[in-house]
């Protein structure tokens, strides 16, 4: 197994900061040419919603940050299927390029290193 990192985001995009810092970890690995993918699970799948409108809460939308992931060299964006169901997040309301995974535990096994931001 070649060395690769799975960064897990399990917190919602707004109301918590840890997800943003987890995204920075992923970008940082990619900047150093390390293999990295992101897994969104739990409330974290809400990161993947299209057309987020955040002006009313005076926060920057995370959508633009996340759309930069492939550009920075993040290999894959995974979403946990059960969490998508739980939050009624369907493929048509998701940003492009997300891979739905039925087994997060299998995904974690496929990577040599897993990290949560907090």
């Amino acid at each position: 197994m070649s060395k690769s990192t799975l960064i897990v985001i399990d917190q919602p995009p707004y109301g918590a900061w840890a997800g943003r810092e987890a995204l920075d970890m992923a970008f940082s690995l990619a900047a150093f040419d390390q293999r990295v993918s992101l897994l969104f699970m739990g409330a974290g799948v809400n990161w993947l919603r299209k057309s987020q409108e955040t002006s009313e809460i005076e926060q920057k939308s995370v959508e633009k940050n996340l759309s930069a992931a492939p550009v920075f060299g993040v290999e894959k964006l995974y979403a946990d299927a059960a969490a998508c169901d739980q939050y009624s997040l369907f493929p048509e309301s998701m940003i492009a390029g997300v891979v739905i995974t039925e087994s997060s535990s299998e995904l974690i096994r496929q990577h040599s290193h897993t990290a949560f931001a907090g």
Partner: protein
Amino acid sequence: MAAIPVQNYTLVITGAPYSSQAPQTALLFAEAAITAGHTVDRVFLYGDGVHLASALVTPPSDESHWPALWAKFLTDNAIPGIACIASALRRGLVNESEQKRYALPASNLLDPFTIAGLGEWVEGTMTSSRVIYFHGGG
């Protein structure tokens, strides 16, 4: 019992002292690892974990002073303790050079902690045999 192979650890602390147990658990882990003959390459503070490196933390005298205990452990064992610069600046933890850069009224980084980028964590993931995370939870 077969001997446990010697590990060299990078420890990542993301939970703040006094709002989580992460710094305490990490310190006990680090002490146990060194006692058992392992090494700790570096300690990286990320997110709320950067509060551990504040020189202004002042708990009541009958409570453990986690920043001071960590600073002594790092110094005694010559282990680098690094606070992520982006996390630190957001939370008001600055060294003298960042104080000058942003024209701030004070600096508060506790010796021997330093401030650096996430590249230090990336290097840990590349070179240490294990990277262990201590989160605030909740």
